[in-house]
């Protein structure tokens, strides 16, 4: 089931969001060794996890986390303009219809095949969410191998600047343009959801 949620991160809410913050700790802190804050030794929550963030969370039948992503409005402080402005040739895009994708997270408990399914479902959900909410572009920051995968999803990507090595990792800032053709482009590249997103989507307070 796909959950689309907006909520304050503190106190840590129940259900799908709690599972997501724990999965984020497991992936970004334990696995990828990112230096980001951890709450109660269990949940990865940073200063952008506030009421302005929107979360897309893919959960299994029992509410277990499968995959998730956080969307930040670019009209407020977000990661690209706060920390990685130098990755952009011009000023980072800021507009009411442009959101930044951060914390794209695939659960570590999934097998390779399940990860692929969860990834494709979440990518499709991101495109559908944009179309349903008048979002015309996403921005993101990616390491090079992940960037090659993002390109392979088939949607229209643009680098916002040249790749640069920051703290030992080569990063690139990118924008993903979303329009009515995007779902077709994704499908043509073999990115198809495992569930009917329209039927499963629900908005929680």
């Amino acid at each position, binding site marked *: 089931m796909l959950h689309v949620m907006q909520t304050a991160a503190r106190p840590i809410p129940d259900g799908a969001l709690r599972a997501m913050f724990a999965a984020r700790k497991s992936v970004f802190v334990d696995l990828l060794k990112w230096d980001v804050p951890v709450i109660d030794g269990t949940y990865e929550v940073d200063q952008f996890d506030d009421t302005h963030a929107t979360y897309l969370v893919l959960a299994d039948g029992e509410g277990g986390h499968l995959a998730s992503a956080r969307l930040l409005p670019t009209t407020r402080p977000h990661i690209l303009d706060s920390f990685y402005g130098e990755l952009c*040739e011009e000023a980072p895009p800021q507009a009411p219809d442009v959101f930044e994708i951060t914390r794209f997270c695939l659960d570590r408990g999934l*097998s*390779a*095949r399940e*990860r*692929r399914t969860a990834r494709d479902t979440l990518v499709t959900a991101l495109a559908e969410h944009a179309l349903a909410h008048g979002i015309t572009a996403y921005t993101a920051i990616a*390491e*090079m*191998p992940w*960037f*090659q*995968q993002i*390109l*392979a999803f*088939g949607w*229209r990507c*643009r*680098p916002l*600047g*040249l*790749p*640069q*090595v920051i703290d030992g990792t*080569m990063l*690139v800032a990118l924008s993903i343009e979303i329009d009515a053709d995007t779902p077709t482009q994704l499908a043509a*590249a*073999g990115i198809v959801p495992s569930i009917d997103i329209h039927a499963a989507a629900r908005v929680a307070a």
Partner: protein
Amino acid sequence: MGMHVMAMQFIRIVEEVRTVDDLTAAMQAVTDELGFQYFALTHHVDVLAAEGTAIRLHNYPDRWADYYDRNALGVSDPVHRASHVTSVGFCWSRMPEMIPLTAEDRRVLAMGREEGIGEGFTVPANVPGEARGSCSFASEAGQPIVVDLLPMAQLAGAFAFEGARRIWSDRGHLSKPPPPALTDRQRDCLLWAARGKTDWEISRILSVTEETVARHIKMACARYGVSKRTLLAIRALFDGTLTFTDIFRR
């Protein structure tokens, strides 16, 4: 013209190309802009054996390309092997620090130089579930490469490979039947086998009989149409049924 503007022009062109000839023309132009003479866009497979299903596009001198194909260098090419140990573009002169080079590797590199191929820059391109690939740019022997332009080469390589992927998949070459599915128990047995355990050891770990372990592995081999467990493990790693993290997890 700024590097980013040059990169954006190339990206726009690559997005529009629909044929191998158009992509070749775009690659020639960007190779020139980047200060190189040669490019090679390829999947790391034996291209003759792959019979046109693998991505392959280059403007290397014919003699060198023929030699390369005849000797199936696509799979053992030190440049390709080096690109498997990094996720970002690298200069060929750095290869000895990246991978152990055999005497044969050194001979192949020397032969390339004799054929006029000098220093190069290779951008790895790996899409999970598909053969690994890369985009290389190379200069004529004796010509220096323009280091300042390498960030653009990195970006151009990523988009060029995706452009080639799209053209090859439009021809239906990249679509494959789904890989065979193993049962959870078959996968568990294979995982421990890949970690180097014998059937007896696996039977202790999973609390089943040794015969059961042997049967699970045999059935898994049958699903993949292979007869050796080493090959089974390699195939399962390649299609993502197993991951290196699974095998080395502590």
